[in-house]
């Protein structure tokens, strides 16, 4: 079974802190994604990576950055956490290479981040 593991289930951080969310997948997938999920807004893409050291902005990249130094690991960084970044963060990886979204994604269990 594909496994996508996020480092924390719950996090509480203070406004202005730098926050790191880590994600590891064990199936040698090329593509990895970070989403946030908010009630009434659904899943929104923050960043994605289709290869090591490659990254592309999604729909809502402001206030975030990412790092992919190894194929299996994709990190999301909140440079200076703000209360409007309180959300559920979901990491995913996808079978297949390239940018065409023709295969399903496998999600981690999510990180519930609260910024106070």
């Amino acid at each position, binding site marked *: 079974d594909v496994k996508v593991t996020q480092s924390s289930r719950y996090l509480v951080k203070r406004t202005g802190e730098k926050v790191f969310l880590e994600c590891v997948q064990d199936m040698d997938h090329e593509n990895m994604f970070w989403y946030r999920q908010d009630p009434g807004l659904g899943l929104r893409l923050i960043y994605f990576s289709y290869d090591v050291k490659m990254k592309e902005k999604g729909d809502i990249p402001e206030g975030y950055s990412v790092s992919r130094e190894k194929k299996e690991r994709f990190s999301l960084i909140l440079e200076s956490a703000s209360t409007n970044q309180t959300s559920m963060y979901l990491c995913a990886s996808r079978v297949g290479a390239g940018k065409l*979204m023709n295969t*399903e994604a496998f999600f981690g269990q999510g990180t519930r981040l609260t910024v106070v």
Partner: protein
Amino acid sequence: EDQVTQSPEALRLQEGESSSLNCSYTVSGLRGLFWYRQDPGKGPEFLFTLYSAGEEKEKERLKATLTKKESFLHITAPKPEDSATYLCAGGYQKVTFGIGTKLQVIP
């Protein structure tokens, strides 16, 4: 801009009462239409991929179908354990998700 719209937002069924969830989409160059199940506090779990109009896929009490503008998730004789939020998604180079249908099956 790609759009994926799901209806209804919430659905309450009695155990054994069959129904359908709708996903309408406007996605240029759709490469796949995906259905996921999401339990509270967890990440989405993949159910089906549909690639072309007329295609159908089944898994236990669930059957997904696809037309050129819509996809349906049919639930036959649901059980309480089918209670979850069902998400539809599709895309070309970026996947757009619907907000989901929250299904509650009452014993």
